[in-house]
């Protein structure tokens, strides 16, 4: 018995020794078996591109509910479609900035860091990533003004927890540089098939980069014409997009997961899981297309349920006001968007040759380059009509119809800026962020604001989207950025304060 007692004691002491020295396998235990410590840059670039197309969340709120309504592509009577009447929903207004840094900026900044500080990848990849980063940031600063840029997305890389809000001016100057350098370093290599836009075609990337440069340059036309002119000339000299084959868009598929779907389709595609039935074509859009004999009307709109005719609904109506509306008293008197162009597998447009050519026409009108404004204008319209083939070959307009429309709508020099503005507006249907920004810069098309009770802009079309008060109150550098831009504590009132380039 005594022997047994000692044996137990011995085992016990052995156990103690075992535990005291036991953190040997701890590093292995603390290695997560479901993730990796590095990633193929191809995989990350594909991810960043697809994420830039956006999810349902911000496409619905910032894109459709605010942007598409404010610029009268679409109209809605539903109370929560706040952009139609310039009423306020803070969460909707800030939805893009709420999501973009986490879903787009974080990975593009990380990818650029990997490509530029390690021997992973090649210079062409870095050039493409830099151009793509501008795609992401231009939208953000155009909508929200001063935003974190230089320090953004560097939480893990540089430990920057509260990136400084940079002035829109400094952001634009850097983005233009990034485009120039990004284009300059395109050459051998690149992302190949992992590039969802051009399959790695470097020539198309050059045109895309230059066209982005033109878009950015023209955005500065009112605030700094000389800089705008210099960059526009550089972009055009480098070669801009001039064919529908150059159009920059991402193809989507119906699943298998949400990330694969077109975010606008996720809002509007009733046949595939969802269907917000509020929006109708705005009468501003339909009436303009009717007045110019635009063959796109039958592509973007379907006849109304009640009348069988294509008709646009006025903006600024609720159900009660609709009941007294002379052009129709039911939402079913008006046309829905053609379901074929807003499916979950529809393409998402980022920049089209039509836009590049119309901007080129505008630059020519301003005398910023030697090209012929009329021919760029005609090319732009033709390309805009041609781009609908991307959505569905069945929607493609034949060449005769396109040239008939182009011939019927030549550039009238006396009215050129307005004409270009309307066409740019039509060409950017479903790229609502861009349509909203270009409208603010040029003042075209000439939209008539609505004045609904409870609107936050005194009956004027809003000129920016309000940032998230949650983010703003957390970030110590917000306050000075707000003061610099003339933004007070009342967030709804921010929607009336123009961004830097909007003079």
């Amino acid at each position, binding site marked *: 018995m005594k022997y047994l007692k000692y044996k137990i004691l011995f085992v*016990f002491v052995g156990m103690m020794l075992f535990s005291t020295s036991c953190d040997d396998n701890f590093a292995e235990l603390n*290695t997560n078996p479901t993730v990796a410590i590095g990633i193929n840059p191809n995989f990350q670039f594909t991810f960043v591109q697809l994420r830039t197309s956006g999810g349902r969340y911000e496409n619905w709120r910032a894109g459709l509910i605010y942007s598409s309504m404010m610029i009268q592509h679409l109209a809605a009577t539903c*109370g929560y479609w706040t952009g139609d009447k310039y009423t306020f929903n803070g969460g909707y207004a800030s939805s893009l*900035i709420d999501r973009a840094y986490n879903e787009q900026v974080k*990975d593009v900044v*990380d990818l650029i860091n990997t490509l530029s500080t390690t021997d992973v990848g090649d210079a062409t990849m870095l050039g493409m990533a830099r151009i793509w980063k501008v795609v992401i940031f231009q939208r953000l600063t155009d909508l929200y003004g001063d*935003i974190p840029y230089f320090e953004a997305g560097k939480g893990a890389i540089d430990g920057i927890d509260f990136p400084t809000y940079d002035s829109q001016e400094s952001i634009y100057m850097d983005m233009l540089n990034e485009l120039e350098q990004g284009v300059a370093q395109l050459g051998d290599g690149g992302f190949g098939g992992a590039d*969802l836009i051009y399959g790695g075609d470097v020539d198309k990337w050059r045109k895309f980069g230059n066209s982005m440069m033109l878009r950015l340059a023209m955005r500065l036309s009112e605030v700094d014409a000389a800089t705008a002119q210099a960059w526009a000339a550089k972009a055009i000299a480098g070669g801009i997009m001039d064919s529908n084959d150059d159009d920059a868009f991402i193809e989507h598929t119906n*699943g298998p997961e949400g990330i694969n779907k077109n975010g606008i389709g996720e809002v509007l595609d009733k046949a595939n899981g969802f269907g917000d039935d509020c929006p109708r074509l705005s009468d501003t859009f339909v009436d303009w297309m009717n007045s110019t004999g635009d063959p796109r009307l039958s592509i973007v709109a379907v006849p109304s349920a009640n009348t069988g005719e294509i008709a646009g609904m006025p903006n600024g109506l609720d*159900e009660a006001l609709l009941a007294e509306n002379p052009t129709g008293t039911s939402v079913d008197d008006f046309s829905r968007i053609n379901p074929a162009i807003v499916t979950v597998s529809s393409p998402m447009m980022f920049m089209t040759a039509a836009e590049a050519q119309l901007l080129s026409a505008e630059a020519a009108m301003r005398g910023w380059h030697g090209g012929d404004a009329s021919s760029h204008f005609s090319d732009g319209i033709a390309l805009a009509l041609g781009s609908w083939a991307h959505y569905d070959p069945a929607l493609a307009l034949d060449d005769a119809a396109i040239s008939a429309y182009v011939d019927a709508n030549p550039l009238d020099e006396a009215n050129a800026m307005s004409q270009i503005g309307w066409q740019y507006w039509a060409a950017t249907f479903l790229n609502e962020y861009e349509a909203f920004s270009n409208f603010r810069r040029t003042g075209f098309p000439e939209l008539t604001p609505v004045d609904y009770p409870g609107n936050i802009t005194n009956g004027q079309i809003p000129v920016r989207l309000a940032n998230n008060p949650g983010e703003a109150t957390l970030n110590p550098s917000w306050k000075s950025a707000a003061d610099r831009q003339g933004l007070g504590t009342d967030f709804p009132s921010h929607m009336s304060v123009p961004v830097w380039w909007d003079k």
Partner: protein
Amino acid sequence: MLFSLTVFSQRTISGTIVDSGGDPMIGANVIEQGTSNGTITDLDGAFSLTVSEGAMLDISYTGYADQVIATENVTDFNIILEEGALLDEVVVTALGIERKKRALAYSVTELEGSSLVTAKEINIGNSLAGKVAGVNVSNPATGPGGSTRIVIRGNGNISGNNQPLVVVDGVPINTGNLGAAGMWGGQDWGDGLSSVNADDIETMTVLKGNTAGALYGYRADNGVIVITTKKGSKDGRIGVEFNSNYQVESIIDFYDFQRQYGHGNRGAKPGTEAEAFAQGLSSWGAPLDGSSVLQFDGQSRPYSDAGDNLSRFYGTGATFTNTLGINGGGEGYGFRFSVTDLDNKGIVPNSTVDRKTFTANVNANKGIFFGNISGSFVNDATSNRPRLSDSPGNANYTAWSLPPSININDLRGDADKLGANPDGTELQFNDNVFVTNPWWAAYQFEGNNTKNRLFGNITLGAELLPGLTLTGKAGLDRFNDRRRNLTPYGTAFSTLGGLTESNRELQEVNLEAILRYAGDINPNIGIDVLVGGNQQKNFDETLSVGGGNFNIPFLHTAKNLANQSTGYGFSQFQVNSVFAMAEISLFNSLYVTATGRQDWFSALTDPNGGPSENTVFYPSIGVAYDLVEGLGGSLPSIVDFAKVRASWAEVGGATGPYQLGLNYGIVGQGHLGQPLGSISNGTVPPIGLRPSTNKELELGFDVRLFKGKVNVDFALYNRETTDGILNAGISSTSGFGSKRVNVGKVTNKGVELLVDVEVLRNNNFTWRTSVNFAQNNNEVVSLLTEESDGEEIRLEESRTRNAYIHLVEGQPYSQVMGFAYVRDGSGGIMLDDDGLPLQGELQTFGTGVHPTSIGWQNSFSIGDVGISFLIDAKSGAKIYNATNAYGYFRGLHQATLEGREGGLGTVAAADVQDYYQRIAFGISEEFIQDANFVKLRELIVSYRLPNDLLQGVPFKDISLSFAGRNLALLASSTDNIDPESTYTTGNGQGLEMFGVPVTRSFGLNLSAKF
């Protein structure tokens, strides 16, 4: 023979009981051994009892040694009780070690299992509310299968867990929350504590301070609850106990909304079906006038008050709990087996909880060896966990928010498929697809889970030499959580539906060995020393399949999903520990105890082999001095017992695994044949991470006066938690929502006082009253940097997106933040050009955690009837009332009546909704309210059948009780909600939004023994 009535010869005995000084003992218990036949002594210490021939008497009195007296051949009983039972009173402490109460240098509170059984809660944690000083229980508004939040002596951790460790029979169990609702909705998937069955509990001991839990090292950060389950006796008898409990509950309707204006907009009734549909949630219509007005479905109905929608929707909940236990044993062994079935039907239609618990406890000893096996198997099936917070699928969101002119029964739709159109899809009643028809949400959505859980331990030990024991213990806690979360086909916001099926397996294993010696070196010096080690290993693995878009309508199975995806998650960690304790007692009056524990953490070890601080030493020291023993006769004789105590300890907390390093993962299933890869961290990984530390100094005393009639326990503590491991909310423009860092210093300073007084005691009536009071002053001293320079960290955000919970330097934990009005010099509200209020600065309005709490328990016994009630009060906290924010937005709140006829300032009558809607989601100041309350928490009336009535039947000790819980809200400063209506058990306390309504319950409890 059917009845066999055995008549023993009986006799009546009488006598008196006095203490050693000759004073009569009033209310001493005199029980005939082995029966429930008994009485208590009267004012003169006298008693009289009829007993069987040859009976033995058990005499007992709190604070005095028990005596057993033979009655044979004795007629006159003069019994003298000796003080000092208390000296031997033991309490179960850390690691399951039984220690003398008088030697403890820290505060413990022990609850009898029986006090948790009568007024039953489905989650046992909720039964603690108001009963223990310093223990703050929040019962969120999440439905019957929901979790509970227990915080002891205030929140110390800036993030992560602030809830205590729960130990059952010496082995820790998982009590983590399995999923809570947040800003964007969700469900409360319950917690681990709900698996503990109240009917199996012998005692529950709350170890509040650091010293009490110091032997648990990093796990003692938030206090420890030690549960000891019932065991079989070794006296050779077989006992059968039966307990049956039936409770009904119904909602407490706190809503006081306007009933004068109906659905509509800008003061007008809807003119068309489309308008009525668009205004399905808008109570900004015309005054109710009884006229016939269109509703969402095109039907015209009277424009008048449609009555009480809540009582139409919410049912009466019912919980039926039955327990059967068998216990027994013999020479050298004892056992107990029990089965409990709990069957709950919740107040939210179609939601149920069904829980079955099987418990076994077997102990044996032979020679120097002893062993024990105990464990429970729990099967818990919960159907339709209610969705909370945000609106999608949340029946609670919709049920209350209907305009006064809409009857919720008109939304029922198809009688065979509630909430549905004839084609089987959701019957929408408004144009916002995300506001779900409540019947559809309750009957067609599914949020079910089944848990199968096994937890228990095997203990083997030997007494190697007198006083020297070696004990080895292996503990297991393993469960799976099988879930099904369905958004049905035809739901307005997801017309093709979606489904997630998942199975999660969690396991914790603890292996422990302890060598202990306790004995007296000489009559004046005693020692109690132990050394031991523990190895803890945990894993957590989840497999899921799901996706969206059912191909075949209404066939809700994963294989039918057009878009399918799979998920897999895995994590594991290990902690190795060694520990030691030494207690020295001098002259039976001074007790000095020291402990130490060293923990090694895998989760703090750099996976890439870099240097890491992965080990910590946790010391404690405590002193207790027994004044009565130590000072002898120099104390007044009214003092039965007095102890002063002081202790200091440092414990800490670790973090989860895989926090170190930036990682990448594959997203989804690729796109167009291209794989998608991205950073998988949502939180910035730290460069290095240290375990947090938590130091506490505790002082206190424990006094018993007047022969146990007055008991006072007082504790004063100062706890400082530093280097908390936190996901600090950082700017989302950094690319990440948060950053994992070691930050800050949080202090909790407080007092706890328990006063327990026997006010009255005579033959037929006793009245005992006890008050527990706790005040905890919390301060977040510093956050990201060591300076107190006004830094803030965001913990939580309301769905209204204009109220937040922050940690603010210099302020108590969980500050409720909101946007104020802009005011002029004289405090008037500034308006914009349209006459609408302007949104001002974000500011703090106070803490969301109550610093002050009082529980007041009274028990009366009148003959065989017992009555007790518990009043529970808390004060000093704020709550953001999102119900009121929506009440303003939708025109339901009473305050929104002002101006509807005459306008407000420059705002026309038709447009006053713009005024209130601006406030609703712009100016949160309006909705931040005091969350003080006084509640009648519990009332119990019990009756024990006199055993002489039970002669000849095989039962004994039959008692019947009636219990009510949450009977009355006696005082409150909130309107339209219960002040305890938070929707989460997370750290961000102080936000309310559309939880399950609070309920009041009444129950009957029957217990009997055979």
